[in-house]
């Protein structure tokens, strides 16, 4: 740990060459959002996973979601969620585009596991296109697994279900907020 060398407690931040914008997302996420929104990324909205919502999210995942706040980006009816789930040991960051209660696009943005990276392939992620939730909050179609990437496949499936459910919850919240 760095024992802070900034001995003086008041500091005037110098001001040369300060970039004008900083979105607060990883570069991979920013690229995904930029591609999805044609370079004009809307400001993020937030959905709090508290109370019953937290419980339902935990039921879908099989454990509580890693954070209590989920950020998403929306334009018109198109909502983009960037979610994380552990495959075996490390979190996988994936982007989900939802519109009209169906998944329009799934992309693996940051894959940190040492094995199972085949889930990044388009042949896998395309299986989710147009998938929706059934009445038990499962996907309405079967997703083919990948040998050697079972845990990663399971993680992405769970996140896809969560993204669809979150999209429904955000719609409900917006309707309630008027």
């Amino acid at each position, binding site marked *: *740990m760095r*024992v802070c060398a900034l001995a003086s*407690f008041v*500091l*005037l*931040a110098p001001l040369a060459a300060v*970039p004008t914008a900083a979105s*607060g997302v990883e570069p991979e996420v920013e690229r995904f959002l930029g591609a999805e929104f044609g370079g004009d990324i809307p400001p*993020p909205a937030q959905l709090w996973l508290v109370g019953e919502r937290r419980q339902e999210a935990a039921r879908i995942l099989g454990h509580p979601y890693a954070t209590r706040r989920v950020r998403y980006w929306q334009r018109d009816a198109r909502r983009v969620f960037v979610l994380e789930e552990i495959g075996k040991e490390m979190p996988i960051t994936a982007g989900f585009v939802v519109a009209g209660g169906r998944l329009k696009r799934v992309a693996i943005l940051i894959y940190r596991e040492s094995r199972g990276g085949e889930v990044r392939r388009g042949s896998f992620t395309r299986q989710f296109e147009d998938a929706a939730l059934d009445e038990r909050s499962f996907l309405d179609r079967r997703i083919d697994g990948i040998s050697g990437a079972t845990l990663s496949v399971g993680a992405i499936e769970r996140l896809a279900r969560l993204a669809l459910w979150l999209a429904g919850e955000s719609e409900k919240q917006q309707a309630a907020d008027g």
Partner: protein
Amino acid sequence: MIKVPTPCKVANGTLQILAALHRWAGAVSLLLLLLLAISGVLLNHAVALGLDKRYVAAGWLLEWYGIEAVAPQAGFRLDDGWVSEIDGRVYLDRQPIADDAGELIGALRIGEVIAVAIHPGLLLLDVNGERIDLVPWPEIGPPVAVGTNEAGESLALYAGAAYRLTGDLLAWEAAGRVVIKPVTAELLDRDLAGRLAEIHRAQVLTWERALLELHAGRLFGRAGPWLADLAALAILLLAASGLWSWQARRKRQRELFG
């Protein structure tokens, strides 16, 4: 006069040598085979058995592994607790709150929220240490320090730049000219440091990792791979001497009974 051994005596001698070889190979490899088989089965079901999330607490095994209790020297003091870090794992008092966090940059309170600056971003926690969100740093990377200004805003400080956390705690924006009071590390309470060292030591080595090391022979240090090689050689000898012995017996039976 030279005594020529009969075919039957030759076969008997060969069989005895093979049987002895087979016995010794079996005896040498038995313990190693048991270790390999048991650790292999456990590793196959490590996730289902939760071995990847359970930690070895046995002091002698941790010592054997060379895992020592290292007490953190400094931390960031909050109103009612400390934030500190050992080997990239960050603790809020005694509670681990982040792994693979890199160097701890700072920690501060933003109202009811605890903000911990770590390498991947600003980690936001509630007062119970539950994770609210992680706000990644601006694209220029982790700051050298975090702090607040007179208005109570949270800022990330860089050489030649500063960024302000937006009011909804969702993103960073360029701060312009601001006066910042950076948070600084202090010497950690000695009792807490000692306790953290013990807690951390007991949460380093998972059972899955220990079994993997045992399975590969690495648990036994430099001799481990050689022991594993010896086991492999013994298995080959067992198979070869068994097959040879079987062939020799069949040949002998054919000679005796036609």
